[in-house]
């Protein structure tokens, strides 16, 4: 369990996992962060027990003709940290006035 605030990277990765992007390359795709950022972030989140990992079933990987993937999912602590971080970042966002993009 990590009590320190999540980094932006951590927040992105947790949010991506929460939305169902469960393996490294998929998370990389959705967050558009480089591999050198995503995988270390996953390791740290796993060490902090905010995510856990498990192996995909062999049958499915064999059917699709590829090696089995390592899937990540949020732990209870991970969900709690994600909720706390989301609330914090929303509060920060309210401090900045909205700017027109046109």
């Amino acid at each position, binding site marked *: 369990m990590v009590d320190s605030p999540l980094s932006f990277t951590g927040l992105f990765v947790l949010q991506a996992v929460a939305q169902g992007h469960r393996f490294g390359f998929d998370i*990389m795709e959705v967050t558009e962060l480089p*591999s*050198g950022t995503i*995988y270390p972030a996953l390791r*740290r989140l796993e060490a902090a027990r905010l995510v856990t990992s498990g192996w995909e079933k062999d049958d499915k990987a064999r059917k699709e003709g*590829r*090696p*089995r993937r*390592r899937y990540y999912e949020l732990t209870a602590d991970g969900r709690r940290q994600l909720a706390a971080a989301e609330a914090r970042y929303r509060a920060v966002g309210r401090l900045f006035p909205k700017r027109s993009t046109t």
Partner: protein
Amino acid sequence: MTGRLLAVIALVVPAVVRPRWREEWSAELAEVRRTRGRLAAARMLRGALADARTLRTLGDAQRKGARGRPFAAFDQDIRYAVRGLRQAPGFTAGIVVSLALGLAGTAAAFSFLNAAFYRGFPEVADQRGLVRLTLGSVQKFSTIPVPYRDYLTLRDNLTTLEGLAAYRDATFAVLAGDQPLSVRGAVVSGNYFRVLGIPPAAGRFFIDDEDRTPDTHPVVVISDMLWERLFHRSPSAIGSVMLVNGAPLHIVGVTPPAFIGIRRAENPARLWVPAAMSALTLRDRDGHPAAIESAGPLWLDLVGRRLANVSVEQVQAQAAGLRDSLDATRPDPRARISAIGVWLNNPEGMEGEMLACGSPSARPAGGSCGRCSPKRSSCRCCRRRSVC
């Protein structure tokens, strides 16, 4: 190509997680190759390297953390050990038997050492303050008998001692009611219990008057065991009469239950009579009862209590100065007086190592000195004995 590079990068990853790491990255690279092409997969290797370094850093941190906490992962060690032992029952049985034998042997050895060398005599106060005096021959490393007069001379002149007591083992025939018993005991000077610092369990111990004039105060002190066996711990035992070697003696006191004298535990004294009543046990050359002062040289044990801040060496020095005034040393110019501390439960055992024959404390009344075999009747110390 990417596979070979991945194998090289994997060397950075801690060995414990390396196979799983390689499997994960193989899948990731396969996915990238399938969707983005080989070049993108090659670029992904930078991520693999960063990932490997992260794992390395995290592994080091965990190891340092584990070392920093006392008994970190101790439960895992226990579980691992238990699993290992369960898988090898024969080995486990061997360990258990070895440990049991080792522990039992060690416990027995230390119990023996404690009993033989370190445990004090029960009920004796401040045993380290006691000192044992012996008269012996320098040349022959043997002890010599002590006339009771010499004990009185030492008692009255050794100012480094609070008191000096004498005692002599004896076996008494006791008749209490209609029950005859052979009881191990001792003839003791009147201050014996006072010097040893023992409180009576019932009644009192000897007073000075009872040890001043021969045969005028027929009193006896009995052990707790004898009190229990003969009188069932009745308080009326104090003051009652008991036949000891045919003489009616008044029981004046009872020793504490654990008290066994300063003798070996296997041979404890159960009865004590004052030296003034020693005619009960002593006989002269003609076989007539002899008072202790006229009985000639005797195998007496002398034990004294040092004054505070007086060392054994100081007692020894003062005792050596009294040598010329002792009857026992006059015919033997090489005789000496020794003072040794009473440190051990079984000091006689140590004495036996040093003396060639017959420490006075080991000599039972009426028998040989105990150090020489029954066949060696030529033992000088036994021959020299005039009264036994």
